[in-house]
């Protein structure tokens, strides 16, 4: 709470606001009245807060467009076939089942893999130089987090190992290269509604843009060769989403790895 310039005690401050917004019960109103009686200098403060409450309460309410509901349902019907299809499959799978999204995702994954490999002197170390991580949180020590899943390279000609680490609601997904070059492009993809990107290696990507697209593309020019930087995306599970989520690594035009993130 902000410091109160008038020297109100926390209790008096709460009473003042509750009386001003009408949420105080009779006992609290009486208690506030006694406070005012003993400290009349509080009255101007009380009046000022009451005016603010009235001004905000007086903001006009505007009805949503009458067509909004119809528009939502029309869009849903167009997205789904006429026959009811249960929504019980995992989110990621239902997304990829849509041809346009699957196509776009494929392109994105190809781009992503190529970005994975960048020269990085500490790629095998426990920690990572903070200057090599873009992010707003203390994510530079992600290599010390618990490994919850590893996926070995799916094909000898595209040697990408995926490592998933967890620290509470934070998850670091790393693509480790065995030095072979990714044909085409590659990328990480995740659900922006359930997961927030809070850091990436190497730095350079705009986190806001990543959180809008749910895609971290891996620059093809940076892929290939041993001892190169291993790209990482650090994701945080958003509040309210406690179902398992999937992060997909696309490479060479197809799904290469899929890691499951769960806070349970």
């Amino acid at each position, binding site marked *: 709470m902000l410091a109160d310039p008038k020297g109100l005690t926390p209790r008096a401050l709460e009473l003042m606001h509750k009386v*001003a917004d009408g949420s105080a019960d009779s006992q609290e109103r009486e208690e506030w009245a006694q406070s005012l009686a003993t400290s009349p200098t509080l009255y101007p403060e009380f009046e000022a807060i009451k005016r603010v409450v009235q001004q905000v309460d007086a903001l006009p309410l505007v009805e949503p467009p009458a067509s*909004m509901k119809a528009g939502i349902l029309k869009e849903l019907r167009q997205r789904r076939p006429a026959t009811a299809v249960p929504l019980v499959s995992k989110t990621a799978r239902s997304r990829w089942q849509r041809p346009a999204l699957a196509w776009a995702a494929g392109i994105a994954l190809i781009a992503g893999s190529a970005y994975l490999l960048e020269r990085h002197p500490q790629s095998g170390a426990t920690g990572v130089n903070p200057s090599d991580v873009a992010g707003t949180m203390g994510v530079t020590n992600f290599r010390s987090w618990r490994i919850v899943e590893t996926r070995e390279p799916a094909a000898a000609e595209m040697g990408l190992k995926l490592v998933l680490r967890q620290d509470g609601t934070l998850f670091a997904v790393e693509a480790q290269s065995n030095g072979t070059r990714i044909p085409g492009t590659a990328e990480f993809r995740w659900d922006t509604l359930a997961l927030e990107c809070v850091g990436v290696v190497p730095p350079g990507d705009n986190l806001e843009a990543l959180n809008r697209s749910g895609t971290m593309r891996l620059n093809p020019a940076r892929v290939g060769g041993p001892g190169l930087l291993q790209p990482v995306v650090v994701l945080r599970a958003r509040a309210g*989403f406690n179902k398992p989520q999937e992060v997909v690594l696309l490479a060479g035009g197809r799904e290469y790895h899929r890691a499951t993130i769960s806070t349970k």
Partner: protein
Amino acid sequence: MFEEESDSAIVDRCRKGDIEAFGTLVDRYQRPIFHAVLHSVWNYEDAREISQQSFLKAFEHLDTFDTNLKFFSWIYRIAMNESINHLRSRRASEPLQDDAAYPAATLDPQAAFEALQRSNAVHRAMAALEDKYRAVLILCHILQLSYRDAAESLNLEEKTVKSRLFSARQLLRERLEDMGHAG
């Protein structure tokens, strides 16, 4: 006696593919969601689009919804995330229009202008607040939620909501005084 179907029961039907059932949830929550978004982005058309997208996203992600939460709390967070993303992209590209929030005024022109002027001053002051302060003002004043319901919507403790609300009112008062709109 007729009992209103619970949100979680409707969500169950939606998860089985019943699109029409989702219309009931839209009926229940389109007004508060639209109001919350409108007072965040302050543009009628943008608010319509963001609200609509929020419901579509909610439907698409119903399998991730935790039925221990209230549906409103969940879709409110979706809508606020969408609004924040929209504001971030707009700040980089275009200024906010003072009169963009409302469709054509239905009051007489002078009264409409004065009402808009007053509400715009309050809104400009609100827009200058940090997101966390604006959120409690929207929930507790615009949507008229109790402290407890606002706390649930924001995934905060009730005492934190109170603290933020009291601070938000104080900050709003100072900004309105600076703008010459102290009431």
